[in-house]
């Protein structure tokens, strides 16, 4: 275009010259547009592959193979003296009762190794279930009860099709004789996939079939309570000061630069801060939600401050002027008129900050919220993990059954995140004002 007339014959009109190049330019235009479309679709493809892979791996974790066993609760085994006091009932050897019932079901099994494999069909947690049942109702002693207990994770994986029944015996975690028992149990309707309540009510466990997310979830909730109760007031106060009262000087400039930079500091550095300052200098308890909450507060503070400032900025100056005009002090104008109007925006920013804190893992690893903790934490001082950390821990575990549990925990985490973002969007829609 810059040098017309060179390629075209003498006397051609400029229109003809433009026409000659049009096909090529249109093709370039189409190619460019296609590239753009391709980029968007690749991005969306990534998202869908990610979500589909998580869901397809994880949805089975909401069901768990249970096994029906008939246990003879002989009085001489549980409570030979007949006192029925709680301590005796607690200490009785329930796992041998369950082993006995397994032997009764398969009387032909002999030999130490085979018996061991047979006992392994039932989860270790079965004995605790049985104990709880007996302690809740001691009148069961002396009877024969039939109850559903969780099956071992290998049985569970087989039932869910993650272990191939037709594979060669050497390639399979479950050997042929065990497979025969499982087939027999299935034929007797003793194996069944049932809704996995334990996943939501129990803490972590070394046995995948007993592991649940309750402990991690409570840890996360305590951590977020600490984070919210510190970062919301601090963030809002800082935003109000910077936006409404701060004089324009070096000090406030320094604060602003700091806030912008903190927003870009990698989260793991906040973990280092927590380790060096909160643990080593102030001696706060390691692994506690209190500590996690403090670290996440510092991490989410910039997000909240920036969002709150934007909300304050969007309140028109006429509101302030009107308040000042009828004799309010600047503080009264801010507290009674500007902040209430900016509150929805501040809350939206806070929810987004909390969502960020909910998904954060790296700083929590630094401050020791990564230990194996089977108990459900009861308060902000108890050692605990958090949901994302639990995902990290389970993802590292070798057992096949943890893969689906990890995916299921991810689904729960994503569910919470979606919920929080939804609330933020609704809040914005509901209270958004155009001045």
């Amino acid at each position, binding site marked *: 275009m810059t040098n017309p007339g060179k390629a075209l014959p003498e006397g051609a009109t400029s229109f003809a010259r433009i026409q000659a190049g049009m096909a090529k330019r249109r093709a370039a235009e189409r190619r460019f547009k296609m590239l753009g479309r391709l980029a968007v679709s690749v991005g969306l493809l990534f998202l869908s592959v990610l979500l589909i892979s998580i869901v397809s791996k994880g949805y089975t974790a909401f069901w768990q193979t249970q096994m029906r066993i008939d246990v003879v609760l002989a009085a001489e085994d549980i409570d030979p003296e007949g006192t029925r006091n709680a301590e005796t009932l607690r200490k009785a050897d329930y796992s041998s009762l369950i082993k006995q019932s397994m032997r009764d079901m398969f009387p032909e099994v002999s030999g130490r190794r085979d018996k061991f494999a047979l006992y392994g069909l039932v989860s270790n947690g079965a004995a605790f279930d049985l104990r709880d049942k007996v302690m809740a109702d001691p009148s069961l002693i002396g009877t024969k009860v039939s109850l559903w207990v969780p099956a071992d994770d290998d049985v569970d994986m087989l039932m869910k099709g993650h272990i191939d029944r037709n594979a060669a015996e050497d390639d399979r975690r479950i050997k042929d004789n065990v497979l025969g028992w499982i087939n027999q149990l299935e034929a007797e309707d003793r194996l069944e996939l049932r809704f996995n309540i334990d996943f939501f009510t129990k803490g972590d466990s070394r046995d995948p079939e007993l592991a649940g997310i309750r402990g991690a979830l409570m840890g996360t909730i305590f951590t977020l309570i600490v984070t919210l109760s510190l970062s919301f007031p601090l963030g809002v106060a800082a935003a109000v000061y910077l936006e409404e009262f701060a004089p324009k000087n070096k000090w406030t400039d320094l604060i602003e630069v*700091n806030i912008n930079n903190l927003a870009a*500091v990698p989260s793991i550095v906040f973990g280092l801060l927590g380790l*060096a300052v909160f643990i080593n200098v102030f001696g706060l308890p390691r692994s506690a939600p209190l500590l996690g909450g403090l670290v996440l507060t510092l991490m989410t503070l910039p997000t909240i401050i920036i969002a709150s400032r934007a909300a304050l900025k969007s309140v028109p100056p006429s509101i302030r002027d009107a308040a000042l005009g009828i004799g309010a002090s600047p503080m009264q104008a801010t507290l009674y008129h500007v902040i209430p109007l900016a509150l929805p925006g501040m809350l939206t920013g806070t929810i987004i900050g909390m969502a960020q804190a909910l998904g954060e893992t790296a700083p929590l690893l630094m401050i020791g919220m990564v230990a194996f903790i089977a108990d459900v934490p009861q308060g902000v001082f108890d050692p605990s993990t958090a949901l994302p950390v639990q995902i990290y821990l389970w993802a590292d575990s070798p057992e096949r059954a943890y893969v689906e549990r990890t995916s299921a925990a991810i689904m729960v985490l994503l569910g919470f995140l979606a919920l929080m973002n939804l609330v933020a969007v609704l809040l914005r829609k509901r209270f958004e004002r155009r001045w």
Partner: protein
Amino acid sequence: MTQTPILLVLLLALTSAAYYFGCKRAFRVADGKIRKLHSLPGYYGLYVALWAALPALLILCAWLLFQGSIITRMVVSSLPDAIQQLGPDRLNLVVNDIRNLVSGNIVSGEPDAIMLAAADYYRGLLSVSRNMLFAIVLVVAGLSGWYGYSKIRVQHRARNGVESIINWLLVACSTVAILTTVGIVLSVLFESIRFFQSVPITEFLFGLEWSPQIALRADQAGSSGAFGAVPLFAGTLLITFIAMTVAVPIGLMSALYLAEYASARVRAIAKPLLEVLAGIPTVVYGFFAALTVAPFIRESGGFLGLDVASESALAAGLVMGMMIIPFVSSLSDDVINAVPQSLREGAYGMGATSSETIRRVILPAALPGIVGAILLAVSRAIGETMIVVMAAGLASNLTANPLEAVTTVTVQIVTLLVGDQEFDSPKTLAAFALGLVLFVVTLALNFVALYIVRKYREQYD
């Protein structure tokens, strides 16, 4: 710890009482005629309440923060000299045992008489400290409340007093950001300086070998304790480079498409969906990279006859690129939209097609902003932790081959600091030195990016 809530409730009650009596006194000094007062009666109440609550709360916080370390120091100094002479890590074990004894947990080994005595001393100090805290906080609250109360006169400027207190509170809250930065800088700097006392800084920055395991015995093999961080920097850069080759073209093209071509409806659906990628926790990406992408790449590599490591840099980089797409696209979207409409219309008026306008007018005009956005994305990729911890390797490997396993700065920080640690070994301190590098590099990138963006923005204002 259980007493603190009770104390807080008591303090709250005291504060409410202060408010009530403050209001009442304001009425009394004005003989019930509010017009005579300088401020509304509520401000007098608030004034007294703030006086009652704030000093006491300050003391409470300081006390709780320092109580632990002071008591520990006192207990340690009461221990026999033989124990005090132990190295800091052994001493830490002893202190932990004493703490466990105090809280009634299981301790390592049989507690001896010295330990039991120390535990008793600790317990005694703790209860003394708690009682003193209780008394001091309540007395201070009462006294300072009384001071506020006694200042109430008809002409007392209670509102101004309350407002200036609130103002100071706001100032205090806004300095938290500065304190955080100072805390970060000091914590990584101090430990790094200690690290550089045992390992020269040149060896750390330019050494080619990284193997932080330190030999416990002289004849131990494979534990040389080498702290040359170049392989880590190279690994970080390799993974960041892979991530950016994924994220920049896709992010930029989708931003251009959504801003210039897409209809409002497509934009309204596709943009938030792409931004979902940024909201997904990184641990989820790590799981996806380690369990789905890495095996897939390994198998496709095997299909092509390539030997791919199971923790290849490619897998981690690809997934990290996925995560960064929305950063690039939404930041570029902002700068593309900031290009004035008149430039576009000028180009269209000259007969340029949309793609010609984008390539020859919009991109050059938006280039500084886009470069800034890319730099921000790079800083994000360098600091990203969970994806690489779960999907990249642990062993250091100086290579540019994306099919091999490499390790990164963040992976090493996590592996060095997770689990049991002694706070004096160079191994632990090395993590802080790496943290310092990470902090400085991301900060620098950020400064440069913001500088470029800001400089660019002023052109059209």
